[in-house]
């Protein structure tokens, strides 16, 4: 077994490549023609995407009656998927902003990629509330704009807060991402010989000259954006949880929801980042940039957030019992032993039991095992949203209105399509933009900073 000496700070980037090598490794995917495997992967994801497009097309044409949503369960798959995808996005901001504030150098190798994931995940998530309103072309009503009805939006509704939170989150993530890309565009601009690429990179690099007068402001902006993105990312899933918590449905109306949702979001986001990174580092030979140590650190965060989520599950039960509120107690017993018990126990095993294996160092450092655990966690986190949304709605206060929710084929088509969209964007991203921040990685190489010998 490989032993690691934790007493010393590890080099973030292994094997000490030179600065030029870094450029070469990172920009290689952009400069080489995609190979067969890439096209194969792309064809799979595009097929998935097309399945989703068909599902959406049918839903628009015939209406949302094609979905499984029924009378008590008005939220069904669309909201489950929305919460799931927004959650996936959270890891990106956590890595790029929160870990940046904590000065965690190991984030540099994975930050760009995770931020990209944030953007794509939020884009994917955004589809669901729009289609869930049934007539997505009326989505403009979500924003307060002077309209011919001289009506404004309802500022008291958490669904409206969602509109503000998610659109702000998307915009700020995009800006953050782009600001990070500026120096890399400049580096690429100076590398490329291709005319069209040169013009494109020149435009996007905004005349960046790696000037230290600029770097100074640039680092400040980065710090400020990280400072804003940190409370922002916490607010986004808090507000998503308000969609549930502000209502009075048993099982939703709890104060634990905001922290519980945020922890869950980071949890699922990290597993998704970890999953995708395992492929990326292998395919593009980034093993020295995205090291095993980095993956191990991610696994530790997965363990931490997984335990937090497990704690929240237990706490929900405790509060239900302790509060003495009968509907609340019923809601939880119903979750664990009612018609959706199967979903509940999938959720508990995947989210609480499996991540505990990461206490073992060997598992934290074995790629196939951690990959499998992360996939399971993603499944579990999807089921968590399913359990929360569906079990509470399907059996609310009035037994005469109870109903079992069964998703339809169209629901599944749209779910598959969302994965298709996400992974298609991801694949295109790996071939068009540097998936690792060149400038940031260079800055954390050994010997890349002045040694201050003369001080």
């Amino acid at each position: 077994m490989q032993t690691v000496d934790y007493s010393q700070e590890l080099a973030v980037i292994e094997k000490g490549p030179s600065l030029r090598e870094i450029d070469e490794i990172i920009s290689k995917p952009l400069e080489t023609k995609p190979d067969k495997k890439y096209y194969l992967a792309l064809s799979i994801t595009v097929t998935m995407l097309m399945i989703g497009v068909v599902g959406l097309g049918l839903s628009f044409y015939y209406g949302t009656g094609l979905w499984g949503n029924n009378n008590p369960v008005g939220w069904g798959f669309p909201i489950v998927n929305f919460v799931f995808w927004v959650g996936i996005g959270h890891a990106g901001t956590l890595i790029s902003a929160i870990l940046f504030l904590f000065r965690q150098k190991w984030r540099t190798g994975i930050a760009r990629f995770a931020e990209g994931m944030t953007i794509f995940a939020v884009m994917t998530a955004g589809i669901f509330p729009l289609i869930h309103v049934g007539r997505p072309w009326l989505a403009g009503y979500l924003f307060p704009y002077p309209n011919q009805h001289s009506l404004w939006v309802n500022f008291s509704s958490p669904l409206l807060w969602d509109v503000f939170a998610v659109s702000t989150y998307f915009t700020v993530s995009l800006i953050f991402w782009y600001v990070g890309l500026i120096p890399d565009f400049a580096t690429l601009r100076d590398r490329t010989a291709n005319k069209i690429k040169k013009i494109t990179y020149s435009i996007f690099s905004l005349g960046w000259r790696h000037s230290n007068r600029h770097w100074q402001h640039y680092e400040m902006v980065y710090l400020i954006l990280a400072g804003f993105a940190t409370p922002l990312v916490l607010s986004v899933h808090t507000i998503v949880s308000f969609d549930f918590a502000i209502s009075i449905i048993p099982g939703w109306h709890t104060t634990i929801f905001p922290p519980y949702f945020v922890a869950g979001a980071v949890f699922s986001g990290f597993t998704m980042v970890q999953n995708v990174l395992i492929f990326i580092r292998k395919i593009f030979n980034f093993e020295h940039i995205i090291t095993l140590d980095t993956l191990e650190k991610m696994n530790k965060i997965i363990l931490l957030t997984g335990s937090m989520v497990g704690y929240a599950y237990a706490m929900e039960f405790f509060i239900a019992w302790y509060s003495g509120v009968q509907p609340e107690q019923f809601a939880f017993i119903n979750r664990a032993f009612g018609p959706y018990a199967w979903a509940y126990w999938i959720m508990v095993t995947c989210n609480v039991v499996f991540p505990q294996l990461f206490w073992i160092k060997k598992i934290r450092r074995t790629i196939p095992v951690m990959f499998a655990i992360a996939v399971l966690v993603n499944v579990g986190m999807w089921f968590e949203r399913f359990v929360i949304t569906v079990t509470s709605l399907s059996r609310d206060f009035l037994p005469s209105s109870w109903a079992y929710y069964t998703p339809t084929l169209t629901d599944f088509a749209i779910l598959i399509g969302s994965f298709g969209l996400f992974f298609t964007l991801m694949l295109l991203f790996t071939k068009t933009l540097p998936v690792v921040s060149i400038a940031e990685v260079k800055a954390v190489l050994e010997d890349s900073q002045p040694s201050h010998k003369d001080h």
Partner: protein
Amino acid sequence: MSEKVLFAITAIFNTPDEIIKAAEKTAENGYKKFDVNTPYPIHGMPNAMKLGRSKLGFAALVFGLSGILAALLMTFWMSAIDYPIIIGGKPYFAFPKYVPIIFEVTVLAASIGTVVTMLFFFFKFPNNSHPLHDSDYMKKVSTEKYGIYIQADDVLFNAEEIKKFLNELGAAEVGEIYWDDDEVSTSPKILEPKFLGFLAVTAIIISGTTYFGLNKLMFMVPFNWMMEQDKALPQETSNIFADGFAMRMPVEGTISRGTIPYPYYGKPELAEKLMINPLDYSEENLALGKKKYDVFCSPCHGYFGEGDSKLRGQYPNPPSIHSEKVRLWSDGRIYHVIAEGQNVMPSYSTQMTREEKWATILYIRALQRALNAKESDL
């Protein structure tokens, strides 16, 4: 070839230690217009170059505060002034529920504002063409080398001296950069017509698409199944029925619930004699009467019953209801006119309930009394 104008003397160094020393020395020697180019930010460089702290934090503060203020005013104006509506029994302006909105708008404004300030104010975007671009120097510093340059327009500039100075610092290479012919100025290009034109076009495109999206696109409904239903609407023709009308008469001999048929069709004398107004003069009854009169009768009879029809001659003007004849009629006789109609005046039996008819009659009496007041009213 025209004489080229010198932009700066450049020097390339191999290690971060050397460049930071070079920067320190350059600043110590009193050069102001110099810059260091490195592929990534070097710790301690702003100090070495004697640059102050970046002032971007203030920009963030200003934009953040404006965001707070804007969101506060927006929510306040929209929900307490322009369209006050009570939601969930809360006051019109319920601060706590606006906190999420205010927070998000603040973050959005501050982030966009700070980045835009950095680009436009500190980086002087769109200064996209610069003598350094496309030079060998640039290519090196953007990958693996550390470069410094001193500009020719620095007050202390002396080409020979600077070259010597840089060589002494241990530069790996010392070189010169010249202006391209078409870019001999670093003045901000933000006011150039080309750029302003670009901004104007962007603004027009963005506002145009927003307008189109919100005011046109949203109402171009792709499918409108709800509007197209297989049913007959009033006033439409229908080929199911022999008479070609979609609207049907009630089945003969039936009445709708709650209706009491009018018994005196064609017998005004009986109506005059036998019917008594069951309502008495109360404020409510008069208010109801006024409402119904204004709706049903005033188009022809005028608001005060003087026969001043609002139909401008498109319909025969009715006589005044202040005539002696109508004043002396009993309530039942007027009821008869409303229920049956009279010559060109149509019947109102289906439009108004019995109570409404009687209330209208009370109101007519009040109108009549107003024009022909008794002495006791004075």
